[in-house]
């Protein structure tokens, strides 16, 4: 987007169709280097929580009264992906206020929803902007939008476009027809990879606390904390802990279809067991510590892998609830037994037992 256009976006302008309709800001279909960079930052940082555009009506190209109207969320990445997909087309873009959240998540919450769409159609005076009665919403916006109610209240019929904005051109060229393929949501290894940083980062934060605790416990002597012992005895556990984070947050998501069983808790546990086993081969560790390791680390990666259900495109609430019902008691008792084992080892090390 050009700078001048960006400026127009942040302060609603009124150059186009001023006589008949209010406030439509023009946007380019190209991305700036800065936007590529910001999109990357959204994948790895909290920027995505405040990466938003102003809701309202926008233009791409030079739309007129017969041009299509596409609906989007005000998460800037959603908006950017849409406008890039509209390159060379002359269309209107109606951006809903989804509190900066992407289409699918916002639809689930209802902010990309019936009421908001009806409100935006009214506020933008869409009936004066276009002479037809069709609006094209992304298919993944459907959980939030009751198309029949929108039509009752506004007269506009909602057409659900393809899942992926990249298919929009083909959809339009085919006379607003989607193929079976365009209707299905995919979850490729690339789709999963871009989601893993947001699995890794929260896990690493907890891992840092874990590593500090291990260092403290391993160095703890009746006489005080011995730095050397903390490091020497703690390192194997710090290493295996890192492996558990990596297994749960990166390996399991990437190899998702290949790790056996459908339950994410079981997938994570199996992957964790394998990696704990591989990890232990490379370090010298006493038998009691191995018992602790095989109990604790696979459960840790299981828990982390279960968090990935929030990022997938195919896990339902009933299924995740079922998983949690059996997994949570196991995690809690596993954590408790691990702690008891650790105390037991320490007491033994000190010669108290």
């Amino acid at each position, binding site marked *: 987007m050009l700078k001048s256009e960006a400026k127009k976006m942040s302060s609603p302008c009124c150059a186009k169709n001023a006589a008949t309709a209010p406030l439509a800001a023009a946007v380019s279909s190209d991305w700036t280097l800065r936007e590529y960079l910001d999109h990357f930052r959204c994948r790895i940082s*909290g920027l*995505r*929580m405040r990466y938003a555009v102003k809701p309202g009506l926008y233009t791409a190209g030079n739309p007129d009264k017969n041009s299509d109207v596409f609906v989007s969320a005000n998460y800037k990445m959603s908006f950017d992906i849409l406008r890039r997909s509209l390159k060379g087309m002359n269309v209107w873009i109606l951006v809903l206020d*989804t*509190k*900066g*959240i992407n289409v*699918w*998540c*916002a*639809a*689930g*919450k209802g*902010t990309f929803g019936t009421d908001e769409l009806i409100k935006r159609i009214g506020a933008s005076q869409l009936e004066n902007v276009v002479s037809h009665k069709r609006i094209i919403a992304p*298919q*993944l916006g*459907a*959980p*939030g*939008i*009751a*198309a*029949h109610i929108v039509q009752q209240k506004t007269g506009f019929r909602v057409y*659900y476009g393809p*899942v992926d904005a990249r298919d929009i051109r083909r959809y339009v060229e085919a006379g607003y027809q*989607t193929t*079976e393929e365009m*209707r*299905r*949501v995919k*979850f490729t290894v690339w789709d999963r990879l871009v989601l893993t940083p*947001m699995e890794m980062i*929260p896990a690493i934060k907890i891992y840092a606390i874990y590593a500090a605790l291990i260092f403290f416990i391993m160095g703890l002597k009746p006489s005080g904390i011995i730095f050397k012992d903390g490091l020497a005895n703690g390192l194997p556990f710090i290493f295996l802990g890192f492996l558990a984070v990596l297994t749960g947050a990166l390996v399991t998501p990437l190899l*998702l*279809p290949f790790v056996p069983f*459908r*339950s*994410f808790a079981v997938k994570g546990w199996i992957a964790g067991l394998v990696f704990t086993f591989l990890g232990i081969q490379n370090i010298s560790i006493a038998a009691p510590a191995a018992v602790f390791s095989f109990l604790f680390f696979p459960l840790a990666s299981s828990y982390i892998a*279960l*968090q990935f*259900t*929030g*990022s*997938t*495109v*195919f*896990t*339902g*609430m*009933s*299924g*995740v*609830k*079922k*998983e*949690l019902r059996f997994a*949570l008691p196991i995690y809690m008792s596993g954590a408790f037994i691990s702690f008891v084992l650790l105390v037991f080892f320490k007491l033994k090390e000190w010669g108290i037992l």
Partner: protein
Amino acid sequence: MKYLTNVTSLGFFPDACTGCERCVEVCPHAVFVMSGKKAALSDKDRCMECGACARNCAFGAIAVNAGVGCAAAIINGMVTGGKPSCGCGDTAGECC
């Protein structure tokens, strides 16, 4: 990829179906197919309970307990005693 079987809360009542095809249009997992003049379930276990079909059925032929299939959100709901929620979009906070 498929998730757990026999867990979805999806219910379909063919008697109320008028064959408008909205459910076929909105489902991202092709759970619904057209069978003659009415919709039919093809594979219920692919349902992720997003609720798009039920929301867009003007005739009440579909019911589903829609919600997020997200462990963090569900644990969050258990802790707060409310509905499963990842917290984003309501208040400022990290999102899944």
